[in-house]
């Protein structure tokens, strides 16, 4: 006989059928059922298979502590694996599958592993692969594949998750985690003080322990009447969040919660809702009313389908109206199981209680007896029998430290209670260690110190319902007082309703027989494994955990950890608190990666930055490339050209005529104030004290340690206004650097900085015909005398839709005569179209990043590839820009011996010796004949230069031009085994005297 639906009772809705499938077979449950209760009602016993031995596993609990009934849900892209059947609501159309079994959980070929069980003990994986064939060998790889296949969990879908998730940021005064008697009382008290209260409950129904039927009454009322009264009273006053798990407690009242939004809804009713919602709540006060989890004790074959927790067996009868079996034996070491037994007997189930203690709790025992429970004292479960599930239980007399077998009882369910473990995972996330309570045989957190967190109810070791309500009420009032700056009252005494003390019991052993007793059924960790780990020298609990994998399954040892700890302590001859406790870390229960990512997926996880002229580039067929966050125009192909051909054509067009490139991504900072000049003079390594109004200067910025940080031009607009440009990549860091200096280092300086990167866009117009184009379209005089090199002018550009205000600087990155034309961002599209027409009329072209980079390499101008955080001004050939006549940031440490050494790698130009030969950026430079060691330096940039008719490069060579100019060296690229003979030349390969740009 197995489980069946009881004719009456339960919190399920019998009028509402819910269809679902179990391994393809159609089943019907009721609204309010979990997968576990619905399968139990159908008489299904084997729901899962264990990790290593493939032993059949049934339903062991009714909650998050489950480590037997682990299943997969849905199919295709929506498949979710390793889900607890005990916490999953059934939904219309839900597909449920057994996992880690072939062909099915009921008939699993992998069960042969069970016969070889003695070889798969603790540390199997670590031991087996030592020296056998050698890690990494072909044999090992094949063996590993087999093992990985056989030992495992569900198989995840390889398809992208079609569901969406969202993240909600929220605040409240008081967050109550848990909706049992203590939690609801706390919420009510806090709300009565006018606080904004949230109650988060992981279950789909509010009520906590009341739902399981273990609580007979609260404050003199029947428990369920009390619950419905409270829920009615709280509705509309506090935010009640069912299906919401508080999975992590972080600093300063930040709590991570996961709400399961649509999984319980029938297909088609989900609409546009997210599957799950991540809620990040900042709470002023947190009340943890997270209850306690019943724990079993270990006995022979205690993993067989039919062995479950005592309170859970009652919960199935009470909440879901399902009898776990026809004849149930309850084995206990404490009073709480009497409530469970009474509840089972009242449901008409034949129930026997084995109490290992000699003294019975009189009142509880009398109540149980009157409900029809048979009670045997001084008896304990020893070994479960039955091939595919419990058929009988061998029982024994408890002789202090081991059991003496005394017959057998026929039964189909063994319900176990070894005591209760308060759920203190969340406070453990804050690093607060619990203390050992001898009377409960449990770790309890009594005092949370400075944290704005209180534990109440069973979570604090309070096992009397009325006392829980009282403590909850006080915690709610204390929270209100604490928010008003009042100190909370003294902690309430914790009490239990128990009449007889709990008799600590972790494992039932026999004198002459070795039982197969599990403490982590999901990962197949037995009591023997713990002792083996001890024998092999594992002392620390953390090591024990990792070696045996105890508590590392999806339930994270909610049931078994404490048993493992107790057995370790016993093996060491120490007490449990001496042996220690493992630290819990978030998440409390598994959370979807999708919910963590929420909307920050694809291109949404970081900004995508476009220049104001994006549409213009797209309209003329520009191709884009990623440069940091930016999408920058790369090249503008004509007639099927690729990147190389287009860039080559663009370079030639600029050098011979005119071209235009978008430079909007440059960082732009306004530096303003009476001390702006002095500020710039300190920030740049070259002098800025005498920059004339209407002139720009190229500046080099160093870090404190003397290494080059950034370069750019700064334009002096008025006596006190400067327009600074930075490299694209350093726009943010430079702004931060300047802000840091002004706010922390030199607060006395009267300087204001403003990022105007987004407010101004711009283009560089370059080439011998640039002057003519700009002169024709603006009201600025572009003649060489009126607008000299490095000059800055403001004026207007004439377009067909009106005038565009522009700010123009005569600067050149390309080596040609060139002007940077800046305009307010909104004017940029108009400016671009007007300029493009003029440039095309003059036979010019728009050019992209590729052509721009080629021209600067030809010219020997440096970028981030050369200013790579390791180079000094002298390294990149700009030693003259490190002023000797003023103080500036980086000057002192730039003078260090190492940075002034003569044989540092310095910037050189590189050209291939053999015509047409190529080399790559990143190649290592060696003297001829050498190919090992650090070499002379490396290639930093390369370009296919139309001017030189060859691939050229910039790089760093120890000794620099002084030692190597004109000599041949090897550029070696060991990745491609590409070796190219190159000649060292001046980095200024194009127009070295600068006649073209000054002309």
């Amino acid at each position: 006989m197995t489980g069946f639906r009881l004719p009456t009772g339960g919190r399920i809705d019998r009028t509402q059928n819910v269809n679902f499938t179990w391994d393809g077979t159609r089943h019907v449950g009721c609204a309010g059922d979990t997968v576990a209760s619905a399968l139990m009602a159908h008489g299904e016993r084997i729901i899962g298979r264990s990790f290593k031995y493939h032993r059949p596993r049934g339903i062991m609990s009714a909650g998050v502590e489950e480590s037997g009934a682990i299943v997969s849900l849905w199919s295709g892209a929506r498949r979710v694996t390793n889900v607890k059947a005990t916490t999953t609501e059934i939904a219309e159309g839900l597909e449920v599958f057994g996992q880690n079994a072939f062909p099915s959980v009921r008939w699993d070929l992998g069960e042969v592993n069970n016969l070889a069980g003695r070889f798969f003990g603790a540390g199997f994986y670590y031991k087996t692969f030592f020296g056998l064939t050698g890690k990494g060998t072909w044999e090992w790889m094949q063996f590993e594949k087999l093992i990985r296949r056989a030992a495992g969990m569900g198989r995840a879908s390889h398809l992208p998750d079609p569901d969406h998730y969202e993240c909600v940021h929220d605040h409240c005064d008081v967050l109550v985690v848990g909706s049992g008697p203590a939690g609801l009382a706390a919420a009510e008290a806090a709300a009565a003080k006018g606080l904004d209260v949230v109650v988060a409950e992981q279950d789909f129904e509010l009520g906590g322990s009341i739902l399981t039927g273990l609580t007979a009454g609260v404050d003199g009322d029947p428990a369920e009447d009390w619950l419905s009264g409270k829920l009615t009273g709280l509705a509309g006053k506090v935010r009640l969040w069912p299906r919401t798990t508080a999975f992590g407690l972080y600093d300063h009242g930040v709590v991570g919660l996961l709400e399961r939004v649509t999984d319980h809804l029938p297909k088609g009713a989900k609409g546009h809702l997210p599957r799950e919602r991540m809620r990040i709540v900042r709470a002023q006060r947190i009340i943890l009313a997270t209850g306690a989890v019943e724990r079993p004790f270990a006995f022979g074959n205690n993993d067989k389908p039919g062995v479950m927790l005592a309170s859970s067996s009652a919960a199935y009868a009470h909440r879901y109206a399902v009898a776990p079996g026809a004849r149930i034996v309850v084995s206990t070491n404490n009073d709480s199981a009497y409530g469970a037994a009474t509840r089972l007997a009242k449901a008409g189930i034949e129930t026997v209680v084995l109490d290992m203690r000699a003294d019975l709790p009189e009142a509880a025992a009398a109540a149980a007896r009157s409900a029809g429970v048979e009670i045997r004292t001084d008896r304990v479960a020893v070994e479960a029998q039955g091939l595919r599930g419990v058929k009988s239980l061998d029982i024994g007399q408890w002789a202090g430290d081991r059991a003496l077998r005394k017959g057998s009882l026929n039964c189909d369910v063994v319900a176990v209670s070894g005591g209760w473990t308060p759920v203190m995972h969340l406070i453990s996330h804050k690093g607060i260690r619990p203390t050992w309570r001898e009377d409960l045989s449990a770790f309890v957190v009594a005092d949370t110190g400075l944290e704005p967190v209180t534990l109440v109810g069973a979570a604090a070791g309070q096992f009397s319902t009325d006392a829980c309500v009282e403590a909850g009420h006080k915690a709610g009032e204390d929270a209100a007082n604490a928010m008003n700056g009042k100190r909370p009252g003294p902690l309430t005494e914790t009490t239990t309703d128990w009449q007889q003390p709990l008799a600590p019991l972790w494992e039932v052993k026999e004198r002459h027989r070795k039982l197969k007793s599990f403490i982590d059924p999901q990962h197949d960790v037995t009591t023997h494994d713990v002792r083996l780990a001890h024998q092999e020298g594992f002392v620390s609990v953390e090591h024990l955990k990792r070696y045996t994998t105890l508590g590392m399954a999806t339930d994270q040892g909610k049931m078994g950890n404490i048993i493992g700890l107790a057995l370790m302590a016993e093996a060491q001859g120490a007490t449990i608190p001496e042996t220690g406790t493992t630290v819990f870390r978030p998440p409390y229960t598994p959370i979807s990666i999708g919910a963590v990512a929420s909307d920050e997926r694809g291109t949404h996880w970081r900004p995508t930055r476009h220049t104001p002229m994006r549409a213009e580039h797209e309209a003329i067929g520009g191709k884009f490339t990623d440069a940091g966050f930016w999408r920058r125009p790369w090249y503008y192909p004509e007639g099927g050209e690729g990147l190389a051909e287009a860039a080559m054509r663009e370079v030639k067009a600029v050098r011979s005529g005119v071209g235009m490139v978008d430079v909007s991504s440059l960082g732009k900072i306004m530096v303003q104030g009476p001390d702006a000049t002095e500020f710039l003079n300190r920030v740049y390594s070259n002098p800025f004290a005498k920059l004339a109004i209407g002139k720009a200067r190229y500046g080099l910025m160093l870090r404190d340690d003397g290494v080059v940080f950034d370069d750019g031009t700064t334009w002096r607009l008025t006596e006190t206004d400067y327009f600074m440009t930075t490299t694209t990549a350093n726009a943010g860091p430079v702004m931060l650097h300047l802000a840091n200096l002004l706010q922390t280092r030199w607060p006395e300086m009267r300087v204001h900085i403003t990022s105007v990167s987004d407010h101004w866009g711009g283009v560089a117009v370059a080439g011998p015909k640039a002057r003519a184009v700009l002169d024709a379209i603006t009201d600025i005089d572009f003649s060489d005398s009126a607008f000299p090199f490095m000059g800055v002018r403001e004026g207007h550009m004439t377009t067909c839709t009106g005038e565009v205000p522009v700010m123009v600087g005569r600067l050149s990155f390309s080596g040609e005569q060139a002007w940077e034309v800046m305009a307010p961002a909104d004017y940029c599209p108009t400016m671009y179209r007007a300029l493009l027409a003029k440039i095309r009329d003059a036979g010019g072209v728009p050019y992209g990043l590729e052509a721009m980079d080629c021209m600067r390499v030809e010219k020997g101008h440096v970028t981030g590839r050369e200013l790579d955080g390791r180079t000094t001004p002298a390294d990149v050939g700009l030693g003259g820009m490190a002023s000797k006549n003023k103080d500036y940031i980086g000057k002192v440490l730039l003078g260090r011996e190492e940075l002034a050494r003569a044989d540092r790698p310095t910037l050189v130009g590189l050209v291939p010796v053999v015509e047409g030969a190529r080399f790559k950026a990143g190649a290592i430079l060696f003297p001829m004949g050498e190919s090992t060691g650090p070499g002379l330096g490396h290639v930093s940039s390369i370009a296919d230069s139309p001017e030189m008719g060859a691939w050229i490069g910039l790089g760093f060579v120890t000794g620099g031009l002084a030692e190597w100019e004109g000599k041949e060296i090897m550029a070696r690229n060991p990745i491609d085994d590409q070796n190219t003979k190159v000649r060292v030349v001046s980095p200024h390969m194009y127009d070295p005297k600068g006649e073209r740009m000054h002309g």
Partner: protein
Amino acid sequence: MIRIYCPFCGYRDQTEFTYEGDASIIYPALDASEQEWYEAVYLRDNPRGVHVEYWRHTYGCGAFLRVVRDTITHEIHSVELAHPGMKKVVGG
């Protein structure tokens, strides 16, 4: 995640701030000795306990804050604006 009280903006998430280093360092004058600069740039204590540090409210007002934080518990003992002039005006 920690929460930091910004005198301009109120309590805000750590994600709005960027950590800007040890605030106990006093940077020497630009013409100070190499030894002084070496000590300021390279020598850092790594205290277990109270630490004075700068946080910038980067995705807020942009102010640099001088925060006294316990590196073990994350308890924040005090927050004030790093710029004395701003501090005088806001009183934070």
